[in-house]
C-alpha cells in the first residue's frame, strides 16, 4: 500500500472540503478502498475517513418511510426489523454482501458510491425508489437513485460531494431480491434482480424492478414495470414481464458467465422475483 495523508474530520463541511482536493479518497467501511489500495488500483494521496462524523449512521423513521444513514453498516440493515418487514428486498440484498465480517465493516453509502453495476444493495434500492441525499461545498442536493450512476464506477457526484443518507418512501406491499451466484456466500452477483410491487384487491397498482450486473450501470426495467401496472398476475403476464426485463439489459460476457446466460437469467429471475414480491404483498 502506498503512503497517504490521513484525515478524520468531524464535520461534513470539513470532509467535503478535504475530499474536493485532487487524489483524495473517502474511507467509509474500507472493504473496497483498503483492498484497492493494497492492490494499488487505488493510490490516493489523501484518505478522508467519514467514521468520526456524527449522525451519518443509523436507520430512522422519516415521514411515512425510513432514512438510512450512508455510514450504516450493511449488517445493521440486514438484521433491522424495520427493513426486513417493510423493505425486505433491501435486507436480502444487504445479507448477500461478502461475509458477516465484511458486512460488519461495509456501509450502504460505500456499496453505492463505489458504483459497481453488481452491487448487492443497488437493485433493491432501485426497486424501493430510494432518494440519495448528497452534501457538498454548494450545500445539499438529492437525486433519485436511478439518476446516480453514469457508468461502471462512475456517478453524478462532483468533487467534494458525499452521500449522506438514503430516503425510502413508505413500504411497497411486497418486495424481493434474488442474487444469481454460484457460492452460497462470498460471491459476486452474476446478476441481481429486485422487484417491489404495490397491490390493491389482488391488482398490481404499481411495480418497480431493479437489475444489477446486466448493464454498465444498475438499471430499472421500466417496460416490464409498465406491463404489470393495473393487472393481476398471470403466467402469461409473467412471461411478458420476464422478456421485457431481458430486453432492457446490455450484459457483457466475462469470466463469471456469458452475456447470453445473463440475459436468459434476467428473464427467469425477474419472473421469479415478481412472483415472490406479489406473494409477499398478499400475505
Amino acid at each position, binding site marked *: 500500500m502506498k503512503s497517504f*495523508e490521513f484525515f478524520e474530520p468531524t464535520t461534513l463541511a470539513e470532509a467535503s472540503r478535504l475530499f474536493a482536493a485532487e487524489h483524495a479518497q473517502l474511507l467509509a467501511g474500507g472493504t473496497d478502498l483498503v483492498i484497492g489500495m493494497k492492490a494499488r488500483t487505488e493510490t490516493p494521496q489523501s484518505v478522508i475517513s467519514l467514521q468520526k462524523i456524527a449522525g451519518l449512521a443509523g436507520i430512522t423513521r422519516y415521514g411515512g418511510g425510513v432514512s438510512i444513514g450512508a455510514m450504516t453498516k450493511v449488517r445493521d440493515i440486514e438484521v433491522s426489523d424495520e427493513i426486513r418487514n417493510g423493505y425486505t428486498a433491501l435486507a436480502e440484498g444487504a445479507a448477500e454482501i461478502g461475509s458477516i465480517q465484511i458486512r460488519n465493516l461495509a456501509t450502504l453509502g460505500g456499496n453505492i458510491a463505489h458504483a459497481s453495476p453488481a452491487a448487492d444493495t443497488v437493485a433493491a434500492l432501485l426497486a424501493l425508489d430510494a432518494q440519495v441525499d448528497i452534501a457538498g461545498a454548494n450545500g445539499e442536493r438529492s437525486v433519485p437513485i436511478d439518476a446516480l450512476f453514469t457508468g461502471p464506477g462512475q456517478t453524478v457526484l462532483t468533487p467534494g460531494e458525499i452521500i449522506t443518507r438514503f430516503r425510502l418512501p413508505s413500504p411497497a406491499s411486497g418486495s424481493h431480491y434474488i442474487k444469481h451466484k454460484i457460492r452460497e456466500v462470498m460471491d459476486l452477483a452474476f446478476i441481481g434482480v429486485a422487484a417491489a410491487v404495490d397491490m390493491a384487491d389482488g391488482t398490481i397498482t404499481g411495480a418497480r424492478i431493479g437489475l444489477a450486473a446486466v448493464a454498465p450501470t444498475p438499471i430499472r426495467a421500466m417496460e416490464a414495470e409498465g406491463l404489470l401496472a393495473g393487472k393481476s398476475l398471470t403466467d402469461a403476464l409473467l412471461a411478458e414481464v420476464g422478456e421485457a426485463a431481458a430486453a432492457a439489459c446490455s450484459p457483457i460476457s466475462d469470466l463469471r458467465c456469458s452475456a447470453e446466460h445473463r440475459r436468459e437469467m434476467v428473464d427467469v429471475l425477474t419472473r421469479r422475483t415478481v412472483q415472490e414480491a406479489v406473494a409477499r404483498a398478499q400475505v
Partner: protein
Amino acid sequence: MAKLPVTLTVNGDEYDLLIEPRKTLLAVLRDTLGLTGTKEGCSTGDCGACTVIVDGRAVTSCMVLGVTAAGKAITTVEGLAVDGELHPVQQAFIDTGGYQCGFCTPGFIVASKALLDENPNRTEEEFRHALGGNICRCTGYTKILEAVMQAAEEVQATA
C-alpha cells in the same frame, strides 16, 4: 507520511503506539504488538483467517486501517481465555479435532465466538452459513462445525 499517535485497546490492554496510516489493523496486531495468533491468509477479506472482534463485531482485520481502530475494544484469539481457562469454543476445537494445519483456526474460533455471543441458539446449517467468510483449505468443515455445535451447547447450558 508521518506516523500518528494512536491508543489501541487489545484484549483489555492499552497500547500507546505510533502507526503509519497505511498499516492495517492486522499488520499492527502481528508486527507491532507481536500478537501473531491472528493470521494473514488472503489479505483481501475472502478467507477470514484475520478475524478479530472490534466493539463486539467480528471483522476481517486485513480490511481495517489500524489508525481507525483507536478507542475501540479489540479482541484477538489471544484474549479469549479467561484466567487460563479456554473459551468453550477453543476447548471444543481441541475436543473434536476441529483443525488440521491450524492456520484457519484462530479466525474460525474468533468468528464463532462472536456468533455465540450474539446468539448461540442456531442450527448447524445457520452456523455453516454464518461462518461462510472463513475458509479451511486442508480438508473440510465437518469437525469445525462439530466443534462449534459443541460450544453452542456448552454456552447455552451455562447461560
